[in-house]
């Protein structure tokens, strides 16, 4: 088997209270070129993983603040090291909250402005395809997928926001049917309708909506979430090809910003 045909290996971190881990596992399994395996929060390391997903849920009961306890799980040191080496890390919903608490992503997620749990479809707009998580999307693409959260209200101070804009780190926004980021289309009060952001290195990405629930035709969720996983798989395969080496493993570790060039 050449590196190009070896499956892309996803690791799904399971915390006590994760509840979207199985959905993410099933989502990955719908891609013929990908495999998934669970990583336990008490693990102190992992090998043979091309991309890590922190799934949604209520890790540690959301005690204190969402993600505040999970960020100190033993596996988070390994995730931090993996991200530091340029590995792809996707945080969905509670996973996004954990990455923000861990300082791997800028800003924070606070209580929804409406003070209620929000569970509904939202229209998103892909603000940049220059990330390993959206490179398979078309610029301005508007995936329609679900949110389900109580603390999805993204916030960051003005200086941080300005820096993120300058670095093209705002990846997804909530928009209305016409594609405009109106207040009415914003499910949680997030500043500037932000639904997903990446780090400066572009290899860590957090989003509140759930792409893993929209991957299969014939099911209620549609297939609009596939572009996220497709992008990640394409990125890992492209990085392997670029490195030219036969082995997977480190050869598949992307150079941090390589995902944008498509």
């Amino acid at each position: 088997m050449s590196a190009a045909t070896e499956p892309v290996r996803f690791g799904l971190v399971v915390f006590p209270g994760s509840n979207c881990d199985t959905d993410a596992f099933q989502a990955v399994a719908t891609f013929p070129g990908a495999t998934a395996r669970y990583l336990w929060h008490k693990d102190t390391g992992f090998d043979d993983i091309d991309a890590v997903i922190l799934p949604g849920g209520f890790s540690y009961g959301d005690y204190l603040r969402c993600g505040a306890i999970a960020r100190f799980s033993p596996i988070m040191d390994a995730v931090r090291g993996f991200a530091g080496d340029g590995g792809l890390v996707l945080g969905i919903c509670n996973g996004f909250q954990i990455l923000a608490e861990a300082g791997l992503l800028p800003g924070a997620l606070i209580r929804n402005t409406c003070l209620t749990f929000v569970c509904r479809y939202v229209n998103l707009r892909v603000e940049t395809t220059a990330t390993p998580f959206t490179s398979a999307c078309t610029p301005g693409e508007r995936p329609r997928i679900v949110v389900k959260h109580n603390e999805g209200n993204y916030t960051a101070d003005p200086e941080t926001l300005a820096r993120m804009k300058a670095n093209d780190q705002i990846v997804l926004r909530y928009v209305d049917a016409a594609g405009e980021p109106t207040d009415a289309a914003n499910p949680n009060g997030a500043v500037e309708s932000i639904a997903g952001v990446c780090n400066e290195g572009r290899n860590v990405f957090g989003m509140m909506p759930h792409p893993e629930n929209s991957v299969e035709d014939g099911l209620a969720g549609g297939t609009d979430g596939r572009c996220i996983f497709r992008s990640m798989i394409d990125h890992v395969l492209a990085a392997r090809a670029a490195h030219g080496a036969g082995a997977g493993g480190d050869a598949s570790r992307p150079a941090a910003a390589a995902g944008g060039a498509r």
Partner: protein
Amino acid sequence: MNVRVYVTPKQGILDPQGATVERALPALGFQGVKDVRIGRFIELTLDMPQGATPEAADALVDDMCKRLLANPIIEDYTYAIDEG
């Protein structure tokens, strides 16, 4: 020693709960209410080694706040430490 930690949303950070309560109070007839901020109150008992200085306890509590009890991106904190 007994420690009381007060965590509040940072100035400039939206506080949806505070905003809702601020709207609710006038509806009940309480006029003149503004700047409602809703935070978190944490009590804990701290056993320090014999002879530890108040400064050592202060540094420890400050570190707890920074690393776990508050998220400095969105929250401010203050604390009070009582001997005994």
